[in-house]
């Protein structure tokens, strides 16, 4: 289990992490979402022992991550801008990683060779960005990590390879109980793979729930009021839109509570529609002054 409690990380006077607290349950796939500059990459760097938090605790399995060789050996990370030695091939990097990760499996490396189909003797710098990303997955999955930390992992991969990579990651989660923390802006994709989501904004966690809880906590309703009436003012609506007589309302409550509230107004039609993660993200952050602005240019 990954536990982060009141983590603070400052760069000069700017607090990139301002008391972050989140928990990634063992064997879960945790999606870390948030706007640009929310502190996701900083949090991941703290979690992988690159940055040292100025305050708070960052632990994996109860152990502090900082300078913990044993924990790092069980953790593999793929940053957004993965570094490789300028002259190195995948095979070179494999030899390098083997020297650090005691659990590195050559058997798996050989198996993954068939998946990724990249010439392992080609210099990494000569590969495309997507192929470099594949190489990173190839090597990191060969490390057989208990914890996999991914920052914008499938950025640059084609749709087939994305599905392939997620299939491998989820396979690890299912078979080996790997815990995955993934930061991404691709909410549609996260929705498919994550079972837990945390939303980070301005260095703080806005909310952290399982995807099911998250979807239970917010509801999207299609409502038709009698006589084509407007949305009653007393309803706690986060967002409302109208197409013809049909109002689409988004409210921060469960579907049952929303329907009870609406029943007072005797609507002709009330239909609960599942919210996408993207909608949850947008409307949660809308409450945190991060709304889509209607600017006419």
């Amino acid at each position, binding site marked *: 289990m990954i536990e982060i409690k009141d983590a603070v990380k400052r*760069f000069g006077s700017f607090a990139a992490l301002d008391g972050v607290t989140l928990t990634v349950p063992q064997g879960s796939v945790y999606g870390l979402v948030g706007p640009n500059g929310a502190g996701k990459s900083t949090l991941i*760097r703290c979690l*992988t*022992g*690159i*940055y*040292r938090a100025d305050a708070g605790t960052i632990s994996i*399995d*109860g*152990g502090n991550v900082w*300078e*913990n*060789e*044993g*924990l*790092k*050996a*069980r*953790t593999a*990370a793929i*940053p957004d*801008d*993965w*570094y*490789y*030695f300028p*002259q190195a091939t995948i095979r070179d990097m494999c*030899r*390098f990683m*083997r*020297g*650090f*990760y*005691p659990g590195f499996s050559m058997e798996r490396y050989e198996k993954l060779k068939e998946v990724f189909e990249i010439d392992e003797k080609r210099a990494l710098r000569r590969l495309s960005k997507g192929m470099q990303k594949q190489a990173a997955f190839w090597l990191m999955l060969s490390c057989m990590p208990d914890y996999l930390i991914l920052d914008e992992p499938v950025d640059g991969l084609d749709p087939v390879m994305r599905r392939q990579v997620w299939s491998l990651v989820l396979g690890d989660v299912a078979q080996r109980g790997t815990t995955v923390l993934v930061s991404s802006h691709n909410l549609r994709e996260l929705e498919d793979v994550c079972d837990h989501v945390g939303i980070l904004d301005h260095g703080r966690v806005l909310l952290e729930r399982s995807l099911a809880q998250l979807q239970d906590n917010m509801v999207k309703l299609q409502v038709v009021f009698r006589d084509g009436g407007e949305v009653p003012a007393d309803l706690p609506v986060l967002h409302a839109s109208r197409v013809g007589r049909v109002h689409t309302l988004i409210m921060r409550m469960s579907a049952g509570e929303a329907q009870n509230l609406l029943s007072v107004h005797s609507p002709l039609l009330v239909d609960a529609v599942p919210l996408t993660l993207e909608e949850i993200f947008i409307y949660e952050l809308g409450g945190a002054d991060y709304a889509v602005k209607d600017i006419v240019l």
Partner: protein
Amino acid sequence: MQLKTSYFNPTLFRKNLMRFWPLWGGVSALGALAPLCALAALIHEGFRSHSMQPLEMTAIYYEVLHYAVPIISLLYGVLCALAMWNYLYNHRSVSLYHALPITRKGLFITNVLSGLAMMLIPYAVTGGLMILISLLGGLFEPVGVLVTVLGVLGLSFFYFAAATLIAFVTGNPFAFAAFYFIFHFLAAAAEWLVMELMSQFYYGVSSTYQGVLDFLSPTVFFLDYKGLNTHTEFQDTVSPDGWVERTLESVTLENGWVIAVYALAGVALLGCAWLLYRRRRSECAGDVVAVGWMKPVFRYGVALCAAVTGGTLLYHLFFNSFQKGSTVMPLPMAVCMAAAGLVGYYIASMLLAKSFHVFRGSWKGALASVAAAGAVCAVIALDPAGVKSWKPEAGNLESVSLSLSSDYGRGISADIADPAAIQKVLDLHGAILEEEQQLDSDGNRYGQAYLGYWLRDSGQYVTRQYSLRYSDGLQSEALEQLRELACDPVVQEANIFPLTRDSSVTTRVTGGYVEDVYNSQTREFENLELTPDQARELEAAVLRDIRAGHFGKTFLADSYEEEVQVTCRGSLSFYYSITRKATGEYGSETYGDSESITISTYCTETLKALEKLGITDETHRLVTRMEYSTMQHANDYRDGGWDDPYAEEWYGPYDAASPGDGYVTPGDDCVYLESAF
């Protein structure tokens, strides 16, 4: 939960060496050229038939250790350290390294060992080949090899440790290289800057580099005589046919312990580097200064250096022409230093911020820089340490090196240890300080007094160099002292006979000659050889003149005319057979040398001796320089030899149509030696 800790990672070690093989491989290849050249020479001479001795190889090793290894290690050390720690300067690479399952201690130890291995591989290749060739040529000398190996190890370790420390001070490869060389030469440069600044403020304080802090600039220290030194001892054997054959008896590396001290300092530097690495923030990759508390040091350090160097430059650009005397005007200098300090402050701020937008809200720091520059200027101008007025105690002086020059008289250089003469030097020093205003003015007369003091208590050599610019006819105690010192027998004896006063040699006059004796019959100048007896007699006469104060009388001559009227064109030269006593370093040896003495009409004892010895008589005369000038003019000598630039001014225009004796009558305008007595 700490599962496992390791302090050395063989994979990283291998990777480091493999990644940077072109660096150590290239340097090894360059280093291998030296032994290969030696091999070629041996092949050319034929193995075993060469005349070299094993100890000569040791001497070569020590010379290499003394001069080449510090410079090579200085340059190669920075490259090795840069290769090892370059990952700290890039956000992506530092993320990879610090996310790896290895502690910083493990990274540090592994990288230090990799770097040291890279440092030593070229030396091992070069040294190994050299040893092999020595063995082949029968030149192997194990002690020299061992000392050299230890020396190379110590120096390599020190330079790599120093570079490693600097690597953690910064987060930028360019700043790393700059800081590394600043670190190695800062003390020497700072001393030079301070001396230069003081020489501009204080009359007589010269900017001569003393090297007091050389030990903090190791490369300077190693290359200097104070650092390493090769001591050789020879055994002279005389062969039956009279040839002296010199054999190298022993070679020792003097001050070799200094390397051990620097190696220990290297351990301390590595310790500091480790402390910095432990606390280093990965996010400082790219920063000019990576250590928080060093940022103000850098900012104000740059401001101060800019104030001193830039301030001096600005002053000389804008205020030099307004200056009276040799020292700067404090107020304009303070303005220039403040302006330059301000520029330095903002340059440093821009480097630290990696941005040009540093002006907003920076007025406090800027003001502090300006105030500091002004304060430095004020403190130096007020001279609280009394540098300007410093004069040593007579009892604390081992000896004094004196060098006096004037616009018309002949220069005097002497090393003196005689207490009475030293007191005269101190009196002169005091008088010059008293009369600074008159002696450091815009006058038409020029002189210089260089006073070098060997201090007994500290062993230091402290100099003062007074440029004298004064007006004609100045009544000055200092000038009187200077005149007296110029005629002082001790000073003049040291000036005229430096060879015979050297306590490490014994001298014997073996002959000599008198140069440019005028023969009135042939109307030519002749050089007359002296027999040993004549030379000895003349040497005694010169000494009598010295003791009578006849030498140096023209030192502060009031005019060029006065000087040339009494100074002889001809000179005396003595040949000496000099035997140097045997010392540990050198065997005894005998060699020849000579002294040349310019005499004047004041040297009555010498002139009488010349007459007595029959060297000068009715037809053979020594002529003064003025006489010569007149004769040259009258006898159409203009095309040959010395061309007096003042001749026409004094004797009228030369008329080519009427050359010969009738043009200028000898005796009308010139003074012959006879009439001068």
